[in-house]
């Protein structure tokens, strides 16, 4: 066997190894999306007009938008200008981490359900319910304790409240699926609309801050919000919250991989009949996993309330839906969620910078996100490309997936 052969074998095995493959494919998806995004920026740049002085020139043609600048701003901006010397933890980087923290929780929420074979589109609603409950109950709690003691008591309390209410709301589609055979995709979509309506009603009425024109609760006192450590408080980011997120990742990983309950969940997700055969109570697992999934969503709501806004306000940003994309990019793997959440955190936070620093419409980032997910969905595409790269001489792959002419197989 020649050395080239050996390298080829090694590469082949690398490509086949699923974790490595996932990472390779995700990176390739990101790169390809950026490339396509750049093309889109250039094309869009031809569709608008601008002064020749403000245009950039590539291949001898003038474009109004500069893709290099866009991606420079998107990534470096989101990372808080790591190369310009003035990096500070209080900068845009903490916005990135703030978004990451929230996306970790919604991502875990979706990922957990996915692992149980359930498509939870309802994280958004669960987040709203958890968030409102947290705001309301922590406010009550703040009447009882305050100061440092308040922080120590109220933050965990708020998280638990978010988890409980998000979990309860998540259990509704769980129960409906387990006992009424109702498709969870439908029920969770409906429950999102319902959560929006009900929280708007409550926060515009019973729980409304009489002082504010907005539909929001009374702001939480400072001690009932996440304390800022290291990172400047201006960006509503708390390292403590991020630590909770990392803890949650570890917890879910442990749950899935090292506990019998996690095994039950994974088995149900992959092959419900086999799970049933293996003594897994299918109905209970459905309810339990959607409840737990909802709990993560609820905690995301609690984080949003106690870290970002300091109150609950109607018109919750779409973290729940972003959680779906995070989870997909992560292959529904809790550890992967950390990286995917960071990537989407960068994209979300970078969007502001792009919008601020360029004339390119920020919706570009939305397109990028879609493209990334699209490419992640088609690993086969990269495998085919990969095979061509590894073995350029190979004939086109036959429809049955077999190689033509593999005489060196022996």
């Amino acid at each position: 066997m020649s050395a080239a052969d050996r390298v080829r074998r090694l590469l082949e095995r690398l490509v086949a190894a699923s974790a490595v493959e996932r990472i390779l494919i995700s990176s390739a998806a990101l790169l390809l999306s950026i490339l396509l995004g750049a093309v889109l920026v250039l094309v869009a740049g031809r569709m608008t007009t601008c002064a020749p002085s403000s245009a950039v020139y590539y291949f001898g043609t003038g474009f109004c938008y500069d893709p290099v600048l866009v991606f420079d701003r998107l990534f470096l901006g989101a990372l808080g200008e790591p190369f310009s010397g003035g990096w500070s933890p209080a900068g845009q980087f903490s916005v990135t981490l703030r978004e990451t923290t929230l996306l970790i929780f919604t991502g875990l929420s979706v990922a957990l359900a996915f692992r149980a074979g359930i498509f939870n589109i309802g994280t958004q609603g669960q987040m709203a319910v958890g968030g409102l409950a947290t705001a309301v109950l922590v406010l009550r709690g703040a009447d009882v304790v305050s100061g440092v003691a308040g922080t120590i008591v109220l933050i965990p309390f708020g998280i638990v409240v978010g988890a409980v209410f998000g979990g309860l709301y998540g259990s509704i589609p769980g129960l409906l699926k387990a006992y009424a055979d109702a498709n969870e995709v439908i029920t969770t979509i409906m429950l999102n609309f319902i959560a929006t309506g009900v929280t708007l009603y409550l926060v515009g009425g019973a729980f409304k801050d009489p002082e504010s024109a907005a539909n929001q609760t009374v702001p939480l006192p400072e001690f009932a919000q996440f304390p800022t450590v290291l990172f400047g408080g201006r960006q509503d980011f708390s390292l403590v919250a991020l630590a909770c997120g990392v803890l949650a990742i570890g917890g879910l990983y442990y749950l899935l991989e090292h506990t019998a309950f996690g095994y039950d969940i994974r088995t149900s997700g992959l092959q419900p009949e086999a799970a049933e055969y293996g003594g897994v109570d299918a109905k209970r697992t459905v309810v339990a996993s959607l409840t737990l999934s909802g709990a993560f969503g609820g905690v995301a709501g609690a984080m949003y309330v106690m870290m970002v806004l300091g109150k609950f306000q109607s018109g919750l940003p779409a973290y729940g839906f972003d959680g779906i994309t995070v989870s997909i990019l992560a292959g529904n793997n809790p550890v992967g969620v950390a990286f995917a959440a960071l990537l989407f955190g960068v994209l979300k936070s970078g969007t502001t910078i792009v919008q601020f620093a360029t004339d390119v419409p920020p919706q570009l980032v939305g397109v990028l996100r879609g493209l990334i997910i699209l490419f992640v969905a088609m690993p086969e595409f990269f495998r085919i490309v990969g095979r061509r790269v590894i073995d350029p001489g190979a004939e086109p792959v036959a429809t049955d997936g077999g190689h033509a002419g593999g005489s060196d197989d022996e």
Partner: protein
Amino acid sequence: MSKAVRLEGITKRFPGVVANDDVDFEVEEGTVHALLGENGAGKTTLMNVLYGLYGPTSGRVVVDGEKREFDSPRDAIDAGIGMIHQHFMLVDPMTVTENITLGNEPRKWGGLAVDRKGAREAVVELADRYGFDVDPDARIEDVSVGEQQRVEILKALYRGADTLILDEPTAVLTPQEIEELFGVLEELTAQGKTIIFITHKLGEAMAAADEISVLRDGRKVGTVDASDTTREGLAELMVGREVLLDVDRPPADTGDVVASVSDLVVDDDRGVRAVDDVSFELRAGEILGIAGVDGNGQSELIEALTGLRPPDAGTVRLLGEDVTDDSRRRRIEAGMAYIPEDRQERGVVMDFDLVENALLGSQHSPELGPRGRIDWPETRTHAETIIDEYDVRTPGAATPAKSLSGGNQQKFIVGREFERDPELVVASHPTRGVDVGSIEFIHERLLELREAGVAVLLISSKLEEVQGLSDRLAVMYEGDFVDVVDPRATTESELGLLMAGQQPEAADGADAGTPTEADEEAPVDADAAAGGERA
């Protein structure tokens, strides 16, 4: 006589597998040709090449003396070749007529509509011509397996097939249905059609075929005349070594009642009564066999017993305890092992590796999952034990179940369940789709368990298996036990009648042949049995 089809030097490679290796194969027009071989020998692949599903890596296909290149089944169909696949290629919610005409619908209004009346008439006419009994308007999901098979054959005939390939057509049929099928094949050859059928079963090949070709490891090891060969000779050709076909079984030494079922009533998915008032007892050290045509309630009975389906009435007791309302998990914990009918749906999680699969059913056990936490090192050792002791051919315990062959998956499941230290083993079709060598192995293990005082409930559609292994044999028909007989004292044809819901004449009961002999001679009183129609 001319050759209907000829395959010359066919080689077909898959990544890492040579499924067919320079196979020459030819079939005389108007004859029945059996293709015999172990699991994975390459039978299906060879026929798929002939049917245009796969292009051969090298080699030629000659039909009616003309060299052909098939890019798709469409080309093969045009050349007069029809194939009835191992798993039926039928669309369940569509009707018999719709299925038969699929892809070749008669049209009207310039193609804008299917000529539904015309299609129905064509189907009725075709069925009449070959004497097939099918209901053109029935939905596939509502008709019996035998009828589905007839639909498959009609489908091929409708497309003008002259050469029919049947892939393991008898695997799912009752002896009577098999007999009917062989009758159909005879009728077809009489009308000039050529038949190739694939089977593992030596007896069938010898009973129905004119010629027999044997494949082993992708190579053809020989073609023989059906009339001058023996079962032993064929088996040796297939496996490459001598095979013990008889089960050596010491007499039972039964103990206490392990499981008892009384007045059990179970409904199926559609709410139709599937098990109707069944009662039986099963003792330690005893194998109770259940024979019956698929779909007579065996699956539902097993599911109710194992805790996968709630019964509508009756009780199930395990070691004296009423477990009727207990969950599946409780039953596992009480010492019930279960080899499920459908290994790839229930028995293993295809995407899990063997370590994870070794845990299935034991995840809450004190040994592997103490206090809700999984002991992975222990589980790995357990998996490796199973792999070693049950001769599971796999690169390692970290291999996903889906990349094991079916037979090896089955061996793994058998190993896992037997290693549970069970009080009761429920084995449903434990050797379905498994090759001769592995069958032997699994049978031996079952008998070992029996000797160790385990109670075994054995369900199989293979009569020779249940007959050979069971101490008592219950025959199930339309949800009830028609009779419980001594398997050694009952002939296959008597069993066939019982399976059709009839009590054989008292006089017949006496002459008990050995099971193997019964298998060898084609059942004779199929006509009598045909009266008992299946639901």
